[in-house]
């Protein structure tokens, strides 16, 4: 299993329709993204490390190496958990909230679109999604990366200025990786659905 190169971004696509998953995967791969597809919001949360109401639930297997998720693109209409529900859960999670989320829907319902944008979705794509829509993803990914780097910088600066007074904070940073500093990881050994 290839590890993502530095220049290749990883998109997690969520859609309950097999046909649409095939399409979005091809669209993303043609646009040079690495892709993982899942068929439900709950599966998406599972592999992002969020299970039900727990955050960062530990993964059992130790021989997996993790892959970063740079953007999530999800269908709106899905059984059990809608794209909107998934979006909310992601935005409520301290570890995941900075991942850009794009919503797709076959129906052009302004109230639905506004609700998603208000909840923090970066964009709303009307289905069927086209090749030209793929060009709209990069800016959101880069914005997310900037936020991540900025936070890392802030934490580093903090540790330098407070190293003399606050050894506990320094220790916490050294011992464990805080959620804000790392991007959520996908385990690469999971099968793509």
């Amino acid at each position, binding site marked *: 299993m290839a590890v993502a190169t530095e220049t290749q971004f990883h998109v997690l696509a969520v859609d309950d*329709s*097999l*046909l*649409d998953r095939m399409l979005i995967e*091809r669209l993303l791969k043609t646009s040079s993204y690495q892709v993982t597809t899942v068929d439900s919001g709950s599966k998406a949360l599972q592999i992002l490390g969020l299970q039900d109401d727990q955050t960062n639930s530990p993964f059992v297997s130790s021989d997996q190496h993790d892959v970063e998720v740079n953007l999530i693109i999800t269908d709106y*209409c899905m059984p059990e958990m809608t794209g909107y529900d998934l979006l909310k859960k992601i935005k409520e999670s301290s570890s995941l909230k900075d991942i850009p989320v794009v919503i797709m829907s*076959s129906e052009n319902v302004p109230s639905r679109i506004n609700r998603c944008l208000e909840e923090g979705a970066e964009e709303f794509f009307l289905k*069927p999604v086209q090749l030209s829509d793929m060009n709209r993803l990069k800016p959101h990914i880069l914005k997310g990366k900037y936020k991540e780097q900025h936070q890392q910088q802030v934490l580093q600066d903090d540790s330098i200025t407070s190293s003399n007074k606050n050894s506990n904070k320094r220790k916490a940073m050294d011992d464990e990786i805080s959620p804000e500093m790392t991007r959520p990881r996908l385990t690469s050994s999971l099968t793509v659905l």
Partner: protein
Amino acid sequence: MAATALKEQLNGLVNSMFAEGLLDEQFQQLQMLQDGSNPGFVAEVVTLFCEDSERILADLTKLMDQAVVDYSKVDAYVHQLKGSSSSVGTQNVKLACIQFRQFCEENNQEGCMRALNVVKHEYYHLRSKFETMLQLENRIQAYETKQQN
């Protein structure tokens, strides 16, 4: 040389499908996604679409056969079929689904029965053209593989 004739036939068929309104620009998007590294992409999508559609049509037939029709279930299936036909660019099937959903909303049994028949008619008409299309693709592929060997 035979491959050229076959390719012309295939192009002719696909163009006529566009002209008739069986296919729309979304199908062209699919064609654009097919390339050297994914030569079978369109065939895969078309095959999956047909399998999906026939399953949905069978389920719809059963639902409409019930003494009391559950329109929300019917609508959910039609919504699915509308979605996949939209994704593949199969215009006539998509339009027939849109009509069908109107009747569902009205809980109009007779309207739904007629609409289901229209969807079936459009789908089977499309399917026979898709079958010819895939047969031509396979024959072309066989020729080209033979040429290389």
